[in-house]
C-alpha cells in the first residue's frame, strides 16, 4: 500500500482519540486516525455505553418482576420475561449507531480513518497493519490514545467461565450463579445489573469495603441496596482460582478459610491497566510514570511532537477526561495556547443507587490541609425523591471554612448521575456555598437537595 504523510496521526479512536481527531480536523489539520476496531474505543464498544444499555435493560426488567406481586404504587405485572439475546442485540444496535455517528463526525471533519493495528517505527513514523496490507505513515505529530485494558488475574485468565467486562456485556443468557471478583464500580454495575436480571450474584472484594476509593457514608446506600437485591458481598476475601471442573470459584476468607462458590460465570473486574504493549511504544523510550506514559500540562510526552491522552496517561481513567485532553491537545498542536487547568474531573458509578463524586471528599480536603465545613442533605427530605421511590442517599458539600469556596460535592441516590453537571460547574466556576444556596433550583426536583446541602452547610437548611 502507498505510504502516507500527514500533520497529525492519532493512534486509538476511543473518546480521547476521536475527540482529538475531530477537533484537529475542524482546525484544518491534516489528520489520520488509526484503530483496529470500530471508532469509539472501550467506552463506546465495550464500556460506558453498552454497560449503561444493559443496566437499563436490567432496571426495566427488575421493575417488571418487582411488580409481580403487586406494589405500593398500585401496579401489578405478571409473567415478565427477559430474552437476553434480544437485549444484547438491542444494545449492539445502539453501539453500531454510535460507531457510525463517530465515523460520520470524523468524515465531516475530513479526518482519514484507517482500520488496523499501528506499530511505532520511530517518533515520526508508524507502520499500520490493515486487512489490505501494511501501510507506512509519516507525520509531524502523534497523539497516543491507546487507552487501557482490563487487568487479568494470572490464576483466573479470561477463558471458559471467566469473563472480563467485555464478556459480561455479551452473554447469551442470564447465568444462574454469577460471581464478581472485584468490588469496584465496574464489578458493582454489572453485578447489580445481573442480580436485577435474576442471577444469584456474589461479589468478592479483597478490601474491607466495596468501592474502596470512596468513604463509607457514600457507599452505604449501595451496600444496603445490594442486600435488598439478594447480592452476597464477601469483603476481605480473595479469589484463588477455579476448581477443576471449572464450576466453582475458590475464595479465601479473612480468617484463611477456603470457600467454594458456585459459579456459572466469573466476572473479573480488578481494575484496568494502561495499554502500552504490542505497538513498540518501548522503542520510543518515552519517560514513564509507573505503568503510564508521563505527560505534562499540555499532554506532551518526553519526545517532541509526541503527545499522549486518556487512560494510557493514568488515573482517573475516565472517558470525559480523555475527551477534554483530546480536544485540548488538538488545539495545542494547531498552535493555540492551551494548558490543562481543570479544577475537577467528576466520576460516576452507575450502581443502584448511583454515586457521583466531584472534587474533594471531607477526608481528602482535610488531608490537603484545608480547614473545611461540610454537611449533607438527605433525599429522604426531598419531595421529588419520594415521588420516585428514590429516598435513599444524600448530597454532600465540602467547602473551605474561611471563604466558603466549594472544594467538593458528592452525591448518592437514584438518578444523581445527571446532577453531576451542576456539581462540576459549581467547582469549575469557583462557586462559594452562597452561590449555590442563592441559586433557585427548580421545584420539584432532586436538584433541590443540592441547594439545600449548601444551605445546610451554611447552617440554614429549610427542609430539614
Amino acid at each position, binding site marked *: 500500500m502507498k505510504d502516507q504523510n500527514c500533520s497529525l496521526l492519532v493512534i486509538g479512536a476511543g473518546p480521547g482519540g476521536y475527540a482529538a481527531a475531530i477537533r484537529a480536523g475542524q482546525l484544518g489539520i491534516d489528520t489520520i486516525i488509526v484503530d483496529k476496531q470500530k471508532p469509539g474505543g472501550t467506552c463506546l464498544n465495550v464500556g460506558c455505553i453498552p454497560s449503561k444499555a444493559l443496566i437499563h435493560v436490567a432496571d426495566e426488567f427488575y421493575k417488571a418482576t418487582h411488580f409481580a406481586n403487586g406494589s405500593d404504587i398500585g401496579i401489578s405485572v405478571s409473567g415478565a420475561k427477559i430474552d437476553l439475546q434480544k437485549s444484547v442485540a438491542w444494545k449492539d444496535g445502539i453501539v453500531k449507531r454510535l460507531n457510525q455517528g463517530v465515523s460520520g463526525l470524523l468524515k465531516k471533519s475530513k479526518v482519514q480513518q484507517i482500520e488496523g493495528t499501528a506499530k511505532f517505527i520511530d517518533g515520526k513514523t508508524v507502520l499500520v497493519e490493515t486487512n489490505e496490507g501494511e501501510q507506512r505513515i509519516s507525520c509531524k505529530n502523534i497523539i497516543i490514545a491507546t487507552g487501557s485494558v482490563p487487568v487479568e488475574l494470572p490464576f483466573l485468565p479470561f477463558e471458559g467461565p471467566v469473563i472480563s467486562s467485555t464478556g459480561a456485556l455479551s452473554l447469551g443468557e442470564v447465568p444462574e450463579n454469577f460471581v464478581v471478583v472485584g468490588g469496584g464500580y465496574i464489578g458493582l454495575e454489572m453485578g447489580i445489573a445481573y442480580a436485577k436480571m435474576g442471577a444469584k450474584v456474589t461479589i468478592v472484594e479483597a478490601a474491607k469495603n466495596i468501592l474502596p476509593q470512596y468513604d463509607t457514608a457514600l457507599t452505604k446506600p449501595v451496600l444496603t441496596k445490594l442486600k435488598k437485591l439478594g447480592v452476597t458481598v464477601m469483603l476481605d476475601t480473595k479469589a484463588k482460582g477455579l476448581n477443576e471442573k471449572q464450576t466453582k470459584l475458590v475464595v479465601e476468607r479473612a480468617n484463611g478459610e477456603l470457600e467454594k462458590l458456585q459459579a456459572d460465570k466469573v466476572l473479573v473486574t480488578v481494575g484496568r491497566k494502561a495499554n502500552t504493549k504490542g505497538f513498540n511504544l518501548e522503542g520510543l523510550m518515552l519517560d514513564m510514570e509507573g505503568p503510564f506514559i508521563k505527560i505534562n500540562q499540555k499532554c506532551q510526552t518526553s519526545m517532541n511532537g509526541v503527545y499522549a491522552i486518556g487512560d494510557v496517561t493514568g488515573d482517573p481513567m475516565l472517558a470525559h477526561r480523555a475527551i477534554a485532553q483530546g480536544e485540548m491537545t488538538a488545539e495545542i498542536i494547531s498552535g493555540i*495556547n492551551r*494548558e490543562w*487547568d481543570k479544577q475537577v474531573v467528576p466520576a460516576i458509578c452507575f450502581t443502584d443507587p448511583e454515586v457521583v463524586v466531584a472534587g474533594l471528599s471531607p477526608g481528602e480536603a482535610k488531608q490537603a490541609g484545608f480547614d473545611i465545613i461540610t454537611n449533607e442533605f438527605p433525599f429522604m427530605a426531598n419531595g421529588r425523591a419520594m415521588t420516585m421511590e428514590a429516598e435513599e442517599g444524600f448530597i454532600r458539600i465540602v467547602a473551605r471554612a474561611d*471563604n466558603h469556596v466549594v472544594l467538593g460535592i458528592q452525591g448518592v441516590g437514584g438518578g444523581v448521575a445527571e446532577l453531576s453537571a451542576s456539581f462540576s460547574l459549581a467547582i469549575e466556576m*469557583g462557586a*462559594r456555598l452562597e452561590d449555590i444556596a442563592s441559586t433557585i433550583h427548580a421545584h420539584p426536583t432532586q436538584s433541590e437537595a443540592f441547594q439545600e446541602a449548601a444551605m445546610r452547610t451554611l*447552617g440554614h437548611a429549610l427542609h430539614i
Partner: protein
Amino acid sequence: MGLYTIKLPDVGEGVAEAELVEWMVEEGQAIVEDQVLAAVMTDKATVEIPSPVEGVLSWRGASIGEVIAVGSPIIRIEIDGEGNSDGLDVDTPANNSDAKPPQDSVKSPAEQPAAGSAQPLVSAQSVVGDNKPVSKSSTPANEFKSSKMSAGNAVAARAEGESPLASPAVRLRARNVGIDLRMVAGSGPAGRITHDDIDQIIAKGPQSGGGSGRGGLVANTQITDVPVIGLRRKIAQQMSIAKERIVPITYVDEIDVTALEELRARLNKNKKDHQPKLTMLPFLMKAMIKAIGELPQMNALYDDETGVVHQYGGVHIGVATQTPNGLIVPVVRHAEARTVWECAEEVLRLAQAARDGSARRDELSGSTITITSLGAMGGLVTTPVINHPEVSIIGVNKMQVRAIWDGTQFIPRKIMNLSSSFDHRIIDGWDCALFIQRIKGLLESPAEIFIDE
C-alpha cells in the same frame, strides 16, 4: 470531673462590656492556676483574665474582636472535682442594674455544646448571639465576622502555591492574552478573578501587563483588609462620637516663645540630676491652668444627654500620646497641684507607661482638658479633635524662627502656633479668643506664669 465557668469579670467602674483582644490558650489545652487565659479591653485599659483553677480548657466563648457583656460566660474549664457550673446553668450577667442584659443573652448557653457537636457553624453563630453586647442591638461581633468574610473575598493574597480562582472562560481568555492568573488579584467573591479584572489589566497596557514579567510598572491590585479591633476600634468610636456630637470651632494664633525658650534653656542647663529635662509642655500646662482660673468653662465635661456642663475645680490634663498600638491619652491628674518640674516628671512617666502598656486604667481616664502635640512634626496648623466629653483641646504646632517686624526692623523670633478646638455648643468664639490670648500672654512673658495674683 466538673465544669468551671469563668464569666467576664467586672473590669471597672461603670464598664458594661469589654472587647476580647487576645486568647492566650487553645481549647483542649491544660491550664494551671493563675495562668493568663485571655485579655479583654475596655474603653480605658486592657485587662488580663487569669485562671483561678487548674484543669483543661474546654470552651472559649468568644472570638477575637467580639464585644462581651460583663457577666457573660467566656471560658469553661474542666477540672477535677466539682465545678461551679454543670454547663447547663443560666448565666445571668452580674450587675444587671447597670448592664441590662438582653433577654436573648440568657437564652441558650446550655444548648451550645449539644448544638456545637452537630452543627459547628450554627453554634458559632449562637455563641456570638449569646454574648451580644449589652448596649445596642447592633452586633459588632457579627459584623466583624462578616467583614472578615468579605475580607476573604476582596483579598487577592492567596496562600502561596494556591491556584487562582477563575471560571474556565476567564482562564482561557487570560491564557490567550498572555496573562498569568497566578499574578492576578481577583476582585470577585473569595478572590475570584473576573473578566473585569482581565479587562483592567489589558486596559493598563503592556507595561503593567499583570505581572507578565516584562519589567516596568505593575499594577498592584492587592487590597489588604485590616480588621478594626481593639484600641483602633476604640479610637474610631471616640472620634466618631466627637464628630457626631461636637460642633467644633478651631482658633489658631501664633505665640512668640523666644523668652520662654530662653527660660527653658536656662532651667535645663542648671537643673539638678534627679530633675527631668523640661519640654514646652509643662509650661503650657501651667499657663493653661492659670487661664482656666479666669475661664473655668474651658475645663469641663459636657454631658449633652442630661444637658449639664460639669466644670471641674481640678485640672486633669490629658496628653495625647502616640503608642505602637495607636493613640492613647494618659492623664496628669491635678496638674494645678503640681510644679512645673512635677508636671514634667509626670508627663514623662505616663508617656512611658502608655507606650509599654503598663498604664493603669485610672491613668488613662478622667481628663478634663487635653493637649495634643506632635512636637517637631507639629506642622503649621492643625484642627484638633476634641476628646469627648471635654470641651477644649489645645494643639501645639512646631516652633520655628521667623522674621518679625518690631516697628523699626525685622528681628528673628522663635514663633510657635497654637491650634485649639472648642465645643462651640458650650464655648463662644469670644471666650476661645480670650482663653488663647491669655495663654499667649503668659507664654510670651513666662515669668507671669509663676506670679500669684
